[in-house]
């Protein structure tokens, strides 16, 4: 995997920097000098990327960020390539992204894969893999794609989602899929008793091997190394449909080994 590595310089105004320009599909095609000259928004000002990051590597589809503070909107609107973030991210990670893969080796903020400021739709493609926890409303208004959270999710993963898949590996889900239209919110923590959500209708419990779509998802999660543990062959899927106050075509899966 060729590409640039951007290492955060230990100074600068991190709290106000906007991560939206940190996209592998855009930055990966630039020559090093052009990359250093890319303007990053910091508050109302613009700062050359080279002032905030040390640049190493070569052009390519992978962009690695090291030591970076949790900036908002990293990977927003990206359409291809791989963005690797070694550390925590701020809010709106992968906002309205359309393709590619984002890997976060740390925690993510609120609204992972949600809509960007100028859009009413969240991500419409691609995959986001977070090794740690995620904040509120992961998958907000997402239309397509996969969000895999290796830790726990805060309030309502899949909130108002249109379609797509949100996977949460640890802990119970707090009000998942509120007002969701379609799509799937998946819980993988076997230690948690399947919750009865008032706005979802439980359809029953089915062997994993009888649900090829779940098997496809489990295999994809393994390929992405998105979860720490593997799912046992004799696992079962506790399936609920809802939100019954909405279209009712969304699903909650709790896969229990």
């Amino acid at each position, binding site marked *: 995997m060729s590409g640039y590595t951007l290492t955060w310089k230990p100074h600068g105004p991190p709290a106000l920097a906007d991560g939206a320009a940190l996209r592998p599909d855009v930055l990966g095609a630039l020559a090093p000098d052009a990359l250093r000259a890319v303007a990053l928004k910091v508050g109302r000002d613009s700062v050359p990327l080279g002032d905030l990051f040390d640049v190493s590597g070569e052009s390519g589809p992978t962009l690695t960020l090291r030591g970076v503070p949790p900036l908002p909107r990293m990977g927003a609107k990206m359409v291809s390539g791989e963005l690797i973030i070694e550390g925590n991210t701020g809010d709106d990670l992968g906002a309205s992204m359309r393709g590619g893969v984002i890997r976060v080796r740390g925690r993510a903020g609120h609204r992972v894969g949600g809509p960007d400021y100028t859009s009413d739709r969240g991500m419409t*493609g691609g*995959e986001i893999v977070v090794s740690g926890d995620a904040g509120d409303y992961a998958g907000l208004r997402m239309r*397509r*794609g*996969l969000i895999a959270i290796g830790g726990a999710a805060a309030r309502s993963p899949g909130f108002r989602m249109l*379609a*797509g*898949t949100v996977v949460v590996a640890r802990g119970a889900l707090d009000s998942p899929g509120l007002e969701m239209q*379609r799509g*799937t919110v998946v819980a993988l923590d076997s230690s948690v008793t399947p919750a009865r959500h008032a706005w979802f209708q439980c359809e029953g419990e*089915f062997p994993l*091997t*009888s*649900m*090829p*779509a779940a*098997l*496809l*998802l*489990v*295999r*994809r999660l393994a*390929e992405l190394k998105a979860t720490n543990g593997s799912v046992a062959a004799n696992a079962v899927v506790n399936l609920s449909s809802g939100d019954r106050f909405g279209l009712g*075509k969304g*699903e909650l899966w709790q896969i229990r080994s």
Partner: protein
Amino acid sequence: MRIQGTIIDDTFAEAFRMWAARLVVTAIDAAWLETAVRTVTGYATSVIGCDAEAALERMIPASETPDGRPGAALLFFAFNADKLAKALPNRVGQCLMTCPTTAVYDGLPDVKVTEDSARISVGAKIRFFGDGHQKSKAIAGRRYWRVPVMDGEFVVEESVGAVKAIAGGNFLVCGPDQATTLAATRRAVDAIAPLPDVITPFPGGIVRSGSKVGSRYKAMFASTNDEYCPTLRSRGKTKLHDGVGCVYEIVLNGLSKEAIVRAMAVGIRAACGPGTVAISAGNYGGKLGKFHFKLHEVLAEGGA
């Protein structure tokens, strides 16, 4: 030319252009997988009378299938992409969706729409059986339809890749009697079976009713290959060597010319030996197809 005493006729097999698709079918266990394979490849020997030619390409271990269950790769051939687009949804809908526990995936997922390739809608059509309860799921850039059925869900990929391919590669195994010739032909079929990108679509991989183009009857566009019928030896032009009382044909459909050459070479060498008088091939004077597989060249190129 002779191999282990068997005469290799200096002739060629005449093959023609077809389009092909590969389906990967999975099921909960080997027994139901075999049922699914037998059903969906039934009545698919020749496009003379069937909507498609189809057969098992190979079994796939669970570790290599998309959903981790036992699987099989099947090849389907039809005259063009439109005919394939009609045959596949019908066969998948009637034979695989109805079969307990199956799922269907595209075996040529990298195929894009070009002059020489196409995408055939399968799940995109079958989904309507769900009567509004169907759901799609996109995983790793591939889209699947989940159709609710009485044992759970039938998962079928939205579309499958189709490519230009070759059908009608063949060779004839000529022996003294049915038992000896059948044994030699079975050896050939068994040797071809593990090879990729090729199928033998006839019963057990073998044809006894080899055909020629045309007929004395207007309604027929193919009829018995009388030059190789031992009971007609004295009635006209025969191509049978002395001592031949039985002929079986192996027809090969492949995704590429190379696949057919390899399969012909492997099969012919397996069929040769004591009891097999000669190996020949079916051709129709260039009237049927543009692909000519000369036996002597095939054996030189195909190795084995």
